[in-house]
C-alpha cells in the first residue's frame, strides 16, 4: 500500500557552513494510503521544501522518508508531482503532453492514444487534444499538468500550490474536479497550499506548519462528509475549522 512516512526529518540548507539555515526540524508524519492530506503554513515554513523532498528532487540533510518502507531517494514515477508554475511542455500538443510518461517507457502508439483519450476527457480537455499549450488559458494548462501526472499512474500525487495562480472561480471548479478524479483513482494525495479554504474543502487531514524553523504545529482532522459540495464551504463546521486554523497561522 502506498503510504509515505516521514521520520525525524530535519533539513538544513548549507549545512556546516557559516550561513546554514534550518528550514525543517524534526518532522514526523504519516500519509496513509488513499488519503488526501493538505499542508498549510505561512511562507517560509518549509512546506514546499518538504514536498519536493518527497518527490525526491533533493535529499534531506537528516532523517528520512519512506514510501511503503522503501527509503525515498531520487525521483521516481511512483511519486508524481504537480508544480505551482506552469510545467506543461510548450513544444508538445495537449495530447503529447498527456502521454509523455507512457511514452518515456516505450508505450506503443495505440497505448498512447488510449491514455490520451482517457485523460483529456477526465480533465475536461476533450476536443483540445491537438492544441498547443500557448493556445490554452492558465486553468486549462493546469488541467494538462494534472492529466499528465495522472496518466503517468503514480502511487502518490504531490501537489505544490497547483491552483495558486488561478482566479477564484476557476480555482473552485478545479478543486471539485480534482476531488472527482481522486475519488475515482484513490491515489494518496499530498497537497501544499496557503489557502485554508482550499485545504479544508479538499482534505481528510490538514497539517499546519509553523516557520523558523519549519515544524508541525497542529494536525486537523476534517470530518466533513464526502463527496464534498460547494455548499459545504458555507456550513458552520467548515467555517469553524477555518477560524481555528486561521488563528493558528496568525499567532
Amino acid at each position, binding site marked *: 500500500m502506498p503510504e509515505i512516512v516521514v521520520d525525524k526529518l530535519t533539513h538544513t540548507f548549507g549545512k556546516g557552513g557559516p550561513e546554514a539555515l534550518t528550514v525543517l526540524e524534526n518532522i514526523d508524519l504519516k500519509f496513509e494510503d488513499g488519503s488526501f492530506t493538505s499542508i498549510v503554513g505561512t511562507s517560509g515554513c518549509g512546506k514546499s521544501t518538504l514536498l519536493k523532498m518527497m518527490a525526491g528532487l533533493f535529499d534531506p540533510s537528516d532523517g528520512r522518508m519512506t514510501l511503503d518502507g522503501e527509503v525515498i531517494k531520487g525521483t521516481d514515477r511512483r511519486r508524481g508531482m504537480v*508544480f505551482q508554475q506552469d510545467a506543461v511542455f510548450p513544444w508538445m500538443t495537449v495530447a503529447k503532453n498527456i502521454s509523455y510518461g507512457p511514452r518515456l517507457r516505450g508505450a506503443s502508439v495505440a497505448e498512447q492514444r488510449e491514455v490520451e483519450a482517457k485523460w483529456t476527457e477526465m480533465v475536461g480537455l476533450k476536443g483540445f487534444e491537438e492544441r498547443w499549450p500557448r493556445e490554452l488559458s492558465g486553468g486549462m494548462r493546469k488541467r494538462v499538468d494534472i492529466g499528465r*501526472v495522472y496518466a503517468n499512474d503514480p502511487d502518490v500525487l504531490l501537489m505544490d500550490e497547483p491552483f495558486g495562480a488561478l482566479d477564484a472561480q476557476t480555482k473552485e471548479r478545479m478543486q471539485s474536479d480534482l476531488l472527482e478524479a481522486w475519488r475515482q483513482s484513490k491515489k494518496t494525495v499530498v497537497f501544499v497550499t496557503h489557502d485554508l479554504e482550499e485545504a479544508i474543502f479538499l482534505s481528510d487531514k490538514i497539517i499546519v506548519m509553523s516557520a523558523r524553523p519549519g515544524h508541525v504545529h497542529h494536525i486537523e482532522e476534517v470530518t466533513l462528509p464526502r463527496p464534498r459540495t460547494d455548499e459545504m464551504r458555507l456550513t458552520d463546521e467548515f467555517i469553524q475549522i477555518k477560524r481555528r486554523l486561521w488563528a493558528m497561522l496568525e499567532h
Partner: protein
Amino acid sequence: MDGLKKFLSGRFVLGALSIGLVLLFYTIITGRPDNNPALLPPIPDIIGSFFTNLAAGTLLDALWASLYRIFLGFFIGTTLAVIIGCLVGWYKTVEYLVDPLIEAIRPIPPLAYIPIIIIWFGIEEFSRVLLISIACFMVCVVNVIAGMKNVPQVYVDAASTMGASRFQVFRTVAVPAATPFIITGYRIALAAAWTTLVAAELIAAPSGLGFMLQEGRRYFLTDQVMMIIVIIGACAFIMDRTFRSIQKRLMIWSETRE
C-alpha cells in the same frame, strides 16, 4: 480600398520604397556629368558586369566555390557546436572541463587565425573551410550553451518526477526547450560564415566571390566590385530568410514567434 491602403503602408511596400530611394539617389549621382565611373559605376554598368560574368561562367564558378565553402564550413562548425554545446550545457563535468577553454578562445576574432592556418595548412581549400568552421562554431556554441542553461527548472523537475532518466530529460526536454537558442545560433553562424568567407577569399583564394572582389580592385573593375557586393548581400539575405521560415515552422509551438 482599405486593403490597398493597408498593403501600401505595409512592410513590403515601405521596404521596397527605401531601397528604391537609395537606387534613385545613386542613379542621380552617377548621372551627373562630373561623375567618375571608375569610382561610382552607373547601375547599367553594374548590371552589364553581371551579365558579362554570367556569360563567361566566371560568376557561377565563383558563386559555387563560395557557397560550397559556406555550406561545408557552416555544417561542420554548427554540428560540432550543437554536440559540444549540449554536452557543456547539460553535464557539469564537461562544463568544468571545456567551458574555460571556450571562454578563453571566444574573444579571439576568427580572422586572427588566418596567418597560423596558412602557416600550418597552406593556401588550400581545407584552410578556408577550417576558418569558416571555426567562426561558425564559436558563435553557435555560445548560443547552444546558453539555451541548455536556460531550460526552465520546472520542466526538468516535471520530467524527472514522471520517471525520466537524466538522458531522457536531456533528449525530451532540454533539447526542445533549447531549440529557440540553437536556431538563433545557426542564424548568427550563417552571418559569421559569410563574413569569414569573404575575408578568407580576399586574402588567399584562387576562386570565389571574395576573389572576384579582389580581382575587381586590382584591375579597377569597380562595376564588378559593386556587382559582387550586391550578389553577396542577396545570397546572405536569401539564406537568412530561408532559415527564418524553417525557424517559424520548427517553432510553431512558441508564443514568441513572429
